[in-house]
């Protein structure tokens, strides 16, 4: 089990207290709802697309520090990226938070998202870190039903 400071890094705490892109889009091209039935966390992710490119991505909802910071930093990372970029980034992110790939600060693709590598030491919190990403995928896929981590 890792150190608490590996999990609750300053950047994560800061984003959880002041999440970026935390709002609703009035007429989103796509949106999806995601929730974690175990802890009650729930988020809605809104997308404005231009073809295959994510022109704008914002979110709203409530959750723990990890899930909120992850959602916040996800929106920052994805603005202007293509759908394929988003899928690839999620795969890398997922590998890092589940401990399947070592993250290092020089991982240019993941960039700031490497701060979530501490999550891999806290298996019960992986779902917190990935909730927004699963919700994003559902929005990109145009799914109607709310996605669940379970």
């Amino acid at each position, binding site marked *: 089990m890792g150190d*608490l400071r590996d999990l609750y890094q300053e950047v994560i*705490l800061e984003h959880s207290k002041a999440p970026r892109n935390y709002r609703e889009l009035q007429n989103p091209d796509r949106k999806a709802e995601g929730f974690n039935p175990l*802890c*009650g966390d729930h988020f809605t992710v809104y997308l404005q697309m231009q073809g295959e490119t994510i022109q704008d991505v914002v979110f709203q909802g409530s*959750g723990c*520090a*990890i899930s*909120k910071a992850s959602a916040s930093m996800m929106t920052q990372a994805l603005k202007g990226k293509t759908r394929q970029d988003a899928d690839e980034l999620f795969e890398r992110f997922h590998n890092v938070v589940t401990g399947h790939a070592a993250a290092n600060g020089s991982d240019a693709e993941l960039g700031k998202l490497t701060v979530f590598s501490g999550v891999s030491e806290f298996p019960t919190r992986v779902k917190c870190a990935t909730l927004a990403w699963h919700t994003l995928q559902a929005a990109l896929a145009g799914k109607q039903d709310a996605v669940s981590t379970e």
Partner: protein
Amino acid sequence: MTTIARSPLHSGRTAVHEDAPGFDVERVRADFPILREKARGHQLVYLDNAATSQKPKVVMDAILRYYEHDNANIHRGVHYLSERATEEFEEARKSVQSFLHAARPSEIIFVRGATEAINLVAQTYGRVHVGAGDEVLITTMEHHSNIVPWQMLCEEKQATLRVAPINDQGELILEEFEKLLGPKTKIVSIGHVSNALGTVNPLAEIIRMSHARNIPVLVDGAQAVPRVPVNVQELDCDFYVFSGHKTYGPTGIGILYGKLALLEAMPPYQGGGDMISSVTFEKTIYNKVPHKFEAGTPDMSGAVGLRAALEYLERLGMDNIAAYEHELLAYATKVVSAIPGVRLIGTAKEKAGVLSFVIEGIHPHDIGTILDQEGIAIRTGHHCAQPVMARFCIDATARASFGLYNTKEEIDALVLGIQKVQEVFA
């Protein structure tokens, strides 16, 4: 006995905790092997008793003894072991009867747990008595297991689920409850002690009001049986359910108590062996209660383990346990609510065993992870009571729930843990 610990109330100074007279918690702790475990390098502080309780050695020994000496299928064989196993199982039933102060052993039905017991009543008594346009009455503070079985029944029967409201302290509003009792109400189903709030419901009043209108009452005692003395005849409830695993007994076993006349009039729940008197392809004659409701080979070792748990509690005395836990809860309420930024959820006058709280600006899930690093086990989330969370406009709480082996020193550790949580998020 007297123990000494650093108290966060008098930081830096030494606090002396006096335990309730007639209850030696250190001796009790020695009966629970798991309490000697370390968690994350710390001495385990187990404050998740409302989820499940730990088991005393006598329970494990009883289960082992059953498998080593008595195991065979019950109510069937003519052989020696089957006779012994049957006797063990039926003795366990009598011990539950005595613990709940039921009139007859045949009013005690072995099920998997409180959840199955409620489903059993909904699917038997409920399906017979609840019809289109009828109502089932519950309260806002119910566990999902006392909501969903009734929703399923109401959906099937085109009946309506009515919900009696609670106030800001988490207490049932009795006048509103009484207003909801009407000619269409076919059953009332209510928790004895709320798992999310700790509220102890005024059952005597509730049952009196319901019976005045000839409405039967099911009491979900999952959180009450381990904490307070229960006398089903004094309560005059029609059904009472609880789970073995929250009562210091094994998992997989629970109890449905029902008044004999009701049980006899109810159709069976599941079909199978042991619940029949005779079977032909043309007609099956059902067995008498309680066997009518116990289809298939039951959890025999579970029943033996549950008996050991209830006898253990009887030796300690439920009055002593209730008094000791009351003192623990009062202490925890005082020291936890004194921490700046902490707000208690559930501040009913009558409470037992449960301290739910939120910390300003910090999600309960994060509280749980940080406390866990200190070896402190609490529950975080909605506690299978999402309507309660909605009532208080929150998504989740952190919940410390106490058992008979917890100590004031462990509550002090919780307070220090909460302070650490606040430091991390400062």
